[in-house]
């Protein structure tokens, strides 16, 4: 049986207790945990080692205004931390962090990751509108693992458990909270604390109803949403409300380029070229290059898209960007059988095989006379 800890409390209390417990290990120099900012009424990550800070935090927040992978990247993009920091991450945040670690934009060894069964998050806009009500009903919904009106992508997320973290927190469909050490690093820390016990862990059966539900939602999403954008007319209609703010790009955890092509001089052309383009196309939408921006971004990072839905949440004009990317990424990833964050090999864009993908080449059979 795996080693771990068992808590009888509510999951938020259990997680906070666990963090306090971990801080007893002198090697750990802090925790990164979502906390509510009272005045602003939003949640954000706090890096702290004070007990008070941990007590006030909300390890499982109802919203995700910042993608945790970006927090880890900010902290370690210039190098490793001297001693580990504990980071509480949702599964999608952890998957994104693992993707970034593959291209040296996160130093994962600097962190001790804790991830949990994720019930999904509310869209930021809903939270703004119904903050009090959501805050009131969230603890109950978390307990029963059924959030209403989450981000559309959360409803169809099938990688919602924390088993790729150092510590996996299991509480969905369980009476108690089980925290299980999944890596050598985690086991050694538990042993050092002298608290480790054997935990039975839950079986796949225990969460099969949630998984089934998510799988059905995912199939539905791929089919119905897929058919809403499957012609140039339809996709341009969907993108017609894009206001070129590029929010989707700036909140995306896996948009890894340090300088974006779409900010480069390549797209700043001389005036007469705009006139030429407008003549050629019977007019030119301003600002131009909306479709190019979205398609270009899909080409660059759809393989690493973890379907967290940050982009959709950040869109001020309700473009379903997250769903577009998720739909596309499902198709592009299937070429290589790659699952971002879960597959351990580097992104398929960084590798190749000498014999592959013949079906994408056009064969030359007969010479013309």
């Amino acid at each position, binding site marked *: 049986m795996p080693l771990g800890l068992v808590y009888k409390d509510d999951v938020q209390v259990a997680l906070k207790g666990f963090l306090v417990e971990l801080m007893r290990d002198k090697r750990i120099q802090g925790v990164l945990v979502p906390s509510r900012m009272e005045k602003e009424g939003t949640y954000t990550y706090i890096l702290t080692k004070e007990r008070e800070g941990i007590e006030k935090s909300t390890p499982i927040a109802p919203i995700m205004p910042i993608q945790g992978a970006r927090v880890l990247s900010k902290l370690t993009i210039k190098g490793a931390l001297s001693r580990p920091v504990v980071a509480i991450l949702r599964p999608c945040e952890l998957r994104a962090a693992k993707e970034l670690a593959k291209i040296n934009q996160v130093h994962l060894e600097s962190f001790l990751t804790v991830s949990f069964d994720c019930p999904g998050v509310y869209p930021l806009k809903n939270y703004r509108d119904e903050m009090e009500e959501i805050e009131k009903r969230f603890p109950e919904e978390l307990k029963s693992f059924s959030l209403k009106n989450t981000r559309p992508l959360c409803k169809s997320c099938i990688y919602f458990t924390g088993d790729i973290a150092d510590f996996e927190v299991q509480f969905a469909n369980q009476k108690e909270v089980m925290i299980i050490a999944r890596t050598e690093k985690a086991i050694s820390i538990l042993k050092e604390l002298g608290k480790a016990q054997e935990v039975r862990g839950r079986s796949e059966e225990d969460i099969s109803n949630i998984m089934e539900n998510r799988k059905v939602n995912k199939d539905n999403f791929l089919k119905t949403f897929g058919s809403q954008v499957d012609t*140039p007319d339809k996709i*341009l209609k969907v993108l017609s409300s894009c206001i070129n703010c590029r929010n989707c790009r700036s909140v995306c955890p896996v948009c890894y380029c340090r300088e974006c092509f779409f900010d480069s001089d390549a797209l700043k052309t001389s005036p007469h070229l705009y006139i030429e383009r407008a003549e050629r196309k019977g007019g030119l939408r301003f600002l131009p290059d909306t479709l190019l921006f979205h398609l270009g971004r899909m080409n660059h990072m759809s393989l690493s898209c973890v379907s967290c839905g940050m982009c959709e949440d950040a869109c001020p004009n309700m473009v379903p960007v997250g769903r577009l990317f998720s739909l596309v990424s499902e198709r592009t990833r299937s070429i290589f059988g790659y699952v971002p964050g879960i597959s351990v090999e580097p992104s398929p864009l960084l590798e190749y095989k000498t014999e592959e993908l013949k079906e994408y080449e056009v064969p030359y059979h007969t010479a013309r006379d």
Partner: protein
Amino acid sequence: MQDDSFEPKIFYALCAWCGSGGTETAGAFRLKYPENIRPFRVNCTGALDPVYILRALVEGADGVCISGCHPGDCHYDIGNFRARRRIAIMKEILNVFGIDGDRVWLRWVAHGEGKKLADTAYEFTEFIKKKGPNPLKRWDT
């Protein structure tokens, strides 16, 4: 239905070593290719960012063809292997939105294969003529 008045505009990306070499060989043999082709020399097919191909399509090119060294022959060892993956990804993305990944062709042409290059140019032009104009040639992209 084939529109006889339709003359496609085709963007043909050629790598500097093989694809462009193919055009030279074709020239040496006095072979012709259709005037619909706009050749575009890149150092390596692996240096051709998908965005360039997309930009051609979004700006109204009716088709994009890419030719470079045969697998294993790349001047930079692995450029064409990377290109193949990128193009596969791009075709899938275009297919999701019904923009038609078949408007993008990838066919390897070696330096000596002048005939193959000219043939490809003809074949692709005919193929695009049958397909009709690019649906993205509209103002609201």
